[in-house]
């Protein structure tokens, strides 16, 4: 078993001139990529005194320099904490306090703190020596959007990252000939995972960074002869709205698409299959803690499009009862996952607490499902209450906390409801207990300065009281019924 970094090194010696990264006019070969990663590792150790196990917060902007520094931190023995460049002050404060980084690299747009430009980390020509990495060591910490508002640091070891990339590449059938367009954010498990999948295999990554510019998206697809890309269901809603059936023009060259796990209407799946009849369209089921535990390829599972697919290569999935006992096939229970890709720990949590996330060695995902006799998984409900607006996660409590400060609003609870426009997947709906004197419009106007646009409720419903458990916890799922 070799780390992603060791595979990068092998690619740089076996095919030094092969193009690894493309960004606009810039092209970087595997040889250059490896050199820059080693230069970054040298600088991190010598200039910033990075020691084994130290954390570095990285602004995951999706540019070439980010890739150099990301692998450079690993090669220097450090732990990467990639965050969205638009992370707000509160979330950043929590992450910084939790990880106590030795430095923060790359520009952050909404946080006032001292950051080091990526360029400084790759200046000079001195390179670190390459030593084999300890596969059990933590490589990355990815902070999820916690349902309670407090983010959770998911620690992933070098073994976790290597295993996930291997499993994904086996299922999707990636090869060194692949040229992938990367429009996903690399601050999340999905996008960053695509970087590791492509580069470990020796393919070429075209860094685009966003789906927002459809002209560029298709322009790069044509210019670079792209063979695949990753997207979330909301990206397909956007592509469809912005370009109709134009993607069919690339049916001959697109070998694969990987789709992230959130609700996707069957009609959308069928349209993609019709437009891309020869493309492997692979939808995954997974989480930051257990990346891509199941997969479904649309064409080969065309009678099972409503399922989350079957267990990924080298993974095991079992369904457990609330008592922690495996249930018979066809019985509803919690999806639990085993494999080298499953998170090695949560940052700053005790091993005892972490152990409670497992049943008999199987990680508890918090999702309810039934597995049939062929191994297909039918998702029943998400125990977790996160709202997914166009691929962006919204914690209900973040919206509720602000709602509850508005004069006239006594209490509130937010849930995700299907977007009637069919573009964002889900949108936020707020249930409020409020005085009649305050209108929905007034409430919305008071929310606007405090929340990003996608977090704003699109609908309000006034109710007499918020449903709660006997211990006072809001029962958001009951509001969905």
């Amino acid at each position: 078993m070799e780390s992603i970094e060791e595979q990068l090194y092998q690619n740089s010696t076996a095919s030094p001139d092969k193009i690894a990264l493309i960004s606009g006019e810039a092209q970087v070969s595997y040889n250059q990529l490896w050199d820059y990663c080693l230069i970054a590792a040298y600088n991190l150790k010598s200039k910033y005194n990075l020691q084994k196990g130290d954390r570095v917060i990285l602004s995951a902007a999706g540019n070439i320099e980010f890739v150099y520094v990301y692998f450079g931190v690993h090669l220097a023995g450090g732990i990467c904490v990639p965050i969205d460049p638009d992370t707000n002050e509160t979330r950043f404060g929590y992450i910084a306090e939790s990880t106590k980084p030795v430095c923060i690299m790359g520009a952050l747009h909404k946080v006032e703190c001292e950051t080091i430009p990526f360029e400084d980390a790759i200046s000079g020509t001195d390179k670190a020596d390459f030593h084999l990495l300890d596969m059990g060591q933590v490589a990355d910490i990815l902070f999820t959007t916690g349902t309670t508002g407090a983010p959770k640091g998911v620690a992933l070891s070098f073994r976790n990252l290597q295993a996930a990339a291997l499993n994904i590449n086996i299922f999707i059938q990636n090869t060194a000939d692949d040229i992938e367009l990367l429009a996903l954010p690399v601050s999340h498990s999905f996008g960053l995972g695509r970087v590791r999948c492509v580069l470990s295999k020796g393919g070429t990554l075209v860094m685009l960074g966003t789906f927002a510019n459809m002209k560029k998206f298709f322009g790069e697809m044509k210019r670079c002869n792209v063979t695949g890309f990753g997207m979330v269901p909301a990206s397909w809603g956007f592509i469809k709205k912005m370009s109709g059936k134009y993607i069919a023009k690339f049916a001959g060259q697109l070998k694969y698409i990987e789709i992230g796990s959130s609700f996707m209407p069957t009609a959308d799946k069928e349209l993609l299959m019709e437009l891309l009849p020869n493309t492997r369209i692979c939808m995954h089921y997974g989480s930051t803690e257990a990346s891509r535990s199941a997969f479904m390829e649309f064409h080969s599972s065309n009678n099972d499009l409503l399922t989350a697919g079957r267990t990924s290569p080298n993974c095991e999935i079992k369904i457990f009862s609330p008592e922690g006992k495996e249930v018979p096939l066809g019985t509803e229970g919690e999806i639990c996952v085993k494999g080298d890709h499953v998170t090695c720990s949560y940052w700053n949590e005790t091993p005892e607490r972490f152990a409670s996330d497992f049943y008999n060695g199987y990680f508890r995902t918090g999702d309810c499902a039934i597995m049939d006799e062929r191994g297909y998984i039918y998702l029943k409900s998400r125990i977790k209450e996160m709202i997914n607006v166009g691929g962006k996660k919204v914690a209900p409590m973040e919206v509720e906390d602000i709602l509850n400060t508005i004069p006239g609003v006594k209490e509130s609870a937010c849930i995700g409801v299907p977007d009637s426009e069919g573009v964002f997947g889900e949108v936020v709906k707020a249930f409020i207990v409020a005085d009649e004197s305050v209108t929905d419009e007034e409430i919305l106007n008071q929310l606007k300065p405090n929340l990003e646009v996608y977090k704003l409720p699109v609908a309000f419903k006034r109710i007499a009281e918020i449903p709660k458990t006997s211990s006072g916890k809001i029962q958001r799922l009951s509001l969905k019924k």
Partner: protein
Amino acid sequence: MEKSEIQSKVFEIVAGVCETTPDQINDNTTIGDFPQWDSVGQLTILSSVEEAFEINFEPEEMMEIEDVKDIVNAVEVKL
């Protein structure tokens, strides 16, 4: 409608979505110049423009729009 009138209305819409003032917007302001002008921002801008000018864009037309100038030109063609 005069082009300058279209322009100022478009500037206003884009500024609103990008959470800034119209004087920070010019013809060349493009997707990604403001973090708010991402895919969700692009959808919001185009649907607001459709509503404001009472027009409808076809997908092929929307695909070609990447900056403020493109929006103004697309509106002008429709009116």
